[in-house]
């Protein structure tokens, strides 16, 4: 009798789990979306049946933590892959590094499946990619934010300091209080480039501006990219203290800054990073999204795919900067309309070399 009762409770637990899982699955909106998706792919297939006939180009995409749908860094890479799929006839295979331990098996799987090129998103693949690239000499890797010169790795780096310079200038032009802020993710050289450019841009407009600066975590602390609650606390304190614009280069943590701006009210702004975050904001948040520093990972991914398609299998460094629109700033929302001319002027000066933006704060 007792055994019976125990089994019953176990079955109940299972049933509860199944119920919840199915409840999520049969969610109406999600179901609609799935059918939309299938329609969309059918359409693409119909449309593209002629140009893509017979091609078997395969592109592997190894996301960093967060993956497709993170609204910033990984999404930018995803857009590039989508473009390569529709315009260059690539079949895209995606894998996301849910934990650090996934990085190596993901790259092995993508290389083993015959994808060429394999796009590797994020500096954190360092230490893994060397080995994989050496073991697969015929595969070309496009390493976003990479830092090593390897024979079959196209290391795709960005002049984040130049893009940050322009949003820093925009912040200084729009700031009413003369105090702005910067929140970084991990305290590493890559993110310090954002900080250095932002501060330099702000000071170029207003030498007396006060720029507060704070990092969410030490090097290696991956929670720094996913702590919106902590970014929100910092931003709330700064907004209250007189800062009116805060730029956040910390992946998903940046959502906390825009929430703080909404909470702090009229005249408080947040600046997004990597993708144009205006598009993932709620209507209320859109009122506080001054601009976003665009890091065109999508361009880098697309151009790498194109180069491989055209037979360029070499490695080496590729830098995407202001002159090639590899970085930039967003004007969605129209909040920068009155200062866009000044920003374009600065942009021209950076491109011509008249202004050299520092990479260290």
């Amino acid at each position, binding site marked *: 009798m*007792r055994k019976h009762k*125990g089994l019953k*409770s*176990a079955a109940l*637990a299972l049933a*509860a*789990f199944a119920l*919840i*899982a199915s409840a*999520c*699955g049969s*969610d109406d*909106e*999600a179901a609609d*979306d*799935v059918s939309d*998706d299938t329609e969309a792919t059918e359409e693409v297939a119909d449309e593209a049946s002629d140009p893509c006939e017979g091609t078997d180009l395969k592109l592997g995409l190894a996301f960093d*933590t*967060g*993956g*497709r*749908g*993170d*609204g910033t860094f990984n*999404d930018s890479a995803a857009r590039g892959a989508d473009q390569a799929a529709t315009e260059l006839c690539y079949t895209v295979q995606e894998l*996301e590094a*849910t934990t650090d331990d996934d990085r190596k098996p993901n790259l092995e799987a993508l290389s083993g499946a015959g994808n060429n090129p394999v796009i590797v998103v994020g500096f954190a693949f360092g230490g893994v990619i060397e080995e994989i690239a050496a073991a697969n000499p015929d595969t070309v890797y496009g390493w976003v934010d990479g830092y090593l010169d390897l024979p079959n790795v196209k290391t795709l780096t960005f002049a984040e300091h130049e893009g940050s310079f322009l949003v820093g200038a925009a912040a200084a032009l729009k700031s009413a209080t003369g105090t702005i802020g910067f929140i970084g993710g991990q*305290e590493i050289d890559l993110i310090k480039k954002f900080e250095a450019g932002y501060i330099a841009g702000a000071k170029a407009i207003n030498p007396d501006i006060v720029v507060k600066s*704070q*990092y969410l*975590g*030490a090097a290696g*602390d*991956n*929670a720094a*990219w*996913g*702590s*919106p*609650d*902590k970014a*929100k*606390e*910092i931003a*709330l*304190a700064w907004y*209250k*203290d007189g800062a009116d614009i805060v730029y956040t280069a910390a992946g*998903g943590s940046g*959502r*906390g800054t825009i*929430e703080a701006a909404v909470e702090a009210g009229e005249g408080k702004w947040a600046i997004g990073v990597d993708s144009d975050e205006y*598009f*993932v*904001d*709620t*209507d*209320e*948040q859109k009122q506080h999204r001054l601009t976003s520093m665009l890091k065109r990972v999508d361009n880098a991914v697309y151009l790498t795919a194109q180069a491989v398609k055209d037979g360029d299998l070499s490695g080496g460094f590729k830098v995407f900067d202001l002159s090639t629109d590899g970085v930039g700033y967003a004007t969605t929302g129209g909040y920068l309309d009155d200062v866009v001319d000044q920003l374009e002027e600065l942009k021209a000066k950076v491109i011509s070399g008249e202004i050299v933006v520092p990479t260290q704060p």
Partner: protein
Amino acid sequence: MKLTGRARLLVFFAVPVALMSIVRLWSGEDALTSSDTIGASLRLSVPILLAGMAGLWAERCGVLNIGIEGMMIFGTWFGGWGAWQFGPWVGLMFAVVGGMLGGLIHAVATVRFNVDQIISGVVLNLLAFFGVRYMSDLAFVGQPGGGVSQSPPQTSAIPRFDIPVLSGGEVFGWKSPNILLNLEERGWFFVSDLAGILHGLTHNLSWGTVIGVAAVPATFWILWRTRIGLRLRSSGESPVAAETLGVNVIRLRYLGLLVSGGLAGYAGGILSIVASSYYRQGQTAGRGYIGLATMIFGNWRPVGVLGGASLFGYAEGVKLVANDAISTLFLFVALAAVLLVVAAVVNRNTTRGIVTAFVAVIAAYTYLAIDDVPESLTQSLPYFATLVVLATASQRLRPPAMAGIPYRRGESH
């Protein structure tokens, strides 16, 4: 030197505040006891506090719960999903249910099937981490702003309020005076620090936070003042004796783990609904384990857990909101340690005297030698403090006697 209960409470509260005040006046860093810092600390403490309470409920009924982190993950996901679909209050309820689901899994595994309690907890953490990814794939992918690692942002939030008279809250449209803020701004010794702390605790409060803090008195009352609480604790102290007296140990352990899961789930809900307005993978950031540390720190008692969680929350709050003031915290630690050395000398407790003297020297040296405290050091500060407390107080800590030992019904026969 023996103090009565009330005098001890006064010493434990007033002395640190006075020390803080001295440090503040000395260094000129007003942020140490400002209402902004304290408010942030409160908001950062609550998830840790609830995780600690979850551990307390589980271990008090006799089951170790390493799976708090996993239950919190369930809470963040179900909370984020519920709040996005149906609004924040329903979201919080979903978070509790999600956590209870985790608690139920742990209970079935450990209480019914006698699976090793550590193994079950670890498995639960993994199950939660990957399980919610699967569910995100079903529920969030393709939604605007959503993806496999995060939910779309919620459009409404739990309301916040200020307490009337003390912190300028509104009563029926009448704007009451803000007495505490007024006092805080004067910069007086002790009084302004106290006012800053109280103002931080009484303004811009979310109802979600208030309910979370209410778990402390509720837990104390249920576990130490009711019959069912006594029986639940006896299941953790001596299940054999409890069963011979007619207590249904198995049922109480199920109950304890369900409450534990619910609290952990609520902690997760706070993270995805109150502290931010979306679910994101990794949002719990190890708070479940920190909660367990506060439970040990707090000697398996609610008020102790509150103290431990406040310590972690305050260190985090100072780090985030008053980063410039963090080095002065070492000065505070040094002064507090010196006082403890004096107390140890008076009590002729050599071991404690040596340990605290050692801490005082290190803290004083850090304060004098380091201008710019590196990020990695500030992050380890609360853990450092926990270690110090454990080192000095571990002789007096006492976990429930039979926590972690499987119990089969009828074992006493």
